[in-house]
């Protein structure tokens, strides 16, 4: 008999996220992957600053809270302290990873640190009330861009996967989304691969998950998922942006 229920690596407490927030889906996917790989006892998660700041209350593994944006730097230290026995992942939002933590992210990728990064891109600062993020789309209305993001004043949104794929360092970069059942399954495969890469000692793996923020986008949860499809995915195309092992295999 097949049973689908809350994975063991997710603590049985109510999540504080808003109704319809896809953070919950990604939490579950990460927990399922930890369960399936049987690494709960040696996994250490690094929580970011942002909506997912309280991720340490939800994952059953050891968790550390990092300063804003510095999760990859903390993860570097944790991983290097005991590389054989620790599986280290960071769980970061776009305000954390792509804004204040950009330097740490780029350098961790450039050094090919053997860590897994789960990057939630919902194009807005959720926790602080919906300000413009580095990933907000052109024309997107937020608290700090009430007439829509104007590229003349604020520049253009950052495509993290494309940018990091120009580096020689990183092992694996993929962008996925969780706006329907099929994409949720694909997202799980990508997250599992990112963890497996770390177990195999391959190096820096980043999975960008295009997510929704119904509250700050001012939409219902259903409309938010449709907005991902209609507005976000054309600018943030899904796919594998770098997979060095596969490229090497092909070259041979």
């Amino acid at each position, binding site marked *: *008999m097949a049973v689908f*229920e809350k994975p063991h690596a997710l603590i049985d407490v*109510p999540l504080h*996220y808003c109704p319809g927030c896809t*953070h919950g889906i990604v939490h579950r996917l990460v927990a399922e992957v930890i369960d399936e790989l049987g690494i709960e006892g040696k996994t250490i998660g690094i929580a970011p600053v942002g909506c997912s700041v309280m991720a340490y209350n939800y994952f059953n593994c050891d968790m550390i809270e990092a300063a804003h944006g510095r999760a990859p730097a903390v993860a570097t230290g944790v991983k290097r302290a005991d590389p054989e026995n620790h599986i280290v992942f960071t769980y970061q939002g776009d305000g954390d990873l792509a804004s204040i933590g950009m330097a740490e992210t780029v350098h961790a990728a450039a050094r090919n640190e053997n860590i897994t990064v789960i990057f939630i891109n919902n194009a807005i600062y959720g926790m602080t009330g919906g300000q413009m993020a580095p990933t907000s789309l052109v024309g997107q209305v937020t608290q700090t861009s009430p007439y829509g993001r104007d590229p003349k004043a604020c520049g253009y949104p950052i495509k993290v996967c494309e940018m990091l794929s120009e580096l020689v360092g990183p092992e694996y970069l993929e962008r996925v989304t969780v706006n329907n059942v099929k994409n949720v399954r694909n997202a799980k495969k990508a997250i599992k691969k990112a963890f497996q890469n770390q177990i195999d000692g391959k190096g820096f793996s980043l999975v960008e998950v295009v997510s929704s923020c119904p509250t700050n986008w001012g939409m219902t949860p*259903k409309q938010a998922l449709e907005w991902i499809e209609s507005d976000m995915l054309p600018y943030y195309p899904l796919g594998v942006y770098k997979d060095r092992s596969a490229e090497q295999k092909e070259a041979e």
Partner: protein
Amino acid sequence: MAKLTFKTDNCKGCALCVDACPKGILQIATDKINKKGHHPVECTDMEQCIGCASCYMMCPDCIIKVER
């Protein structure tokens, strides 16, 4: 036969499972209210459930258990 169990008190009534269900047998119970003050989800006809777990896949709060 497939069986769904809901942890109703953790439901936030976002209705993502309602849209995901291929059989259309889930609905938000507007006549009920849970501990958190949300209208929770309910199954209207368990007989029709095929146990595809689409609702489980889309539930952000992991309140659905699917057995088949």
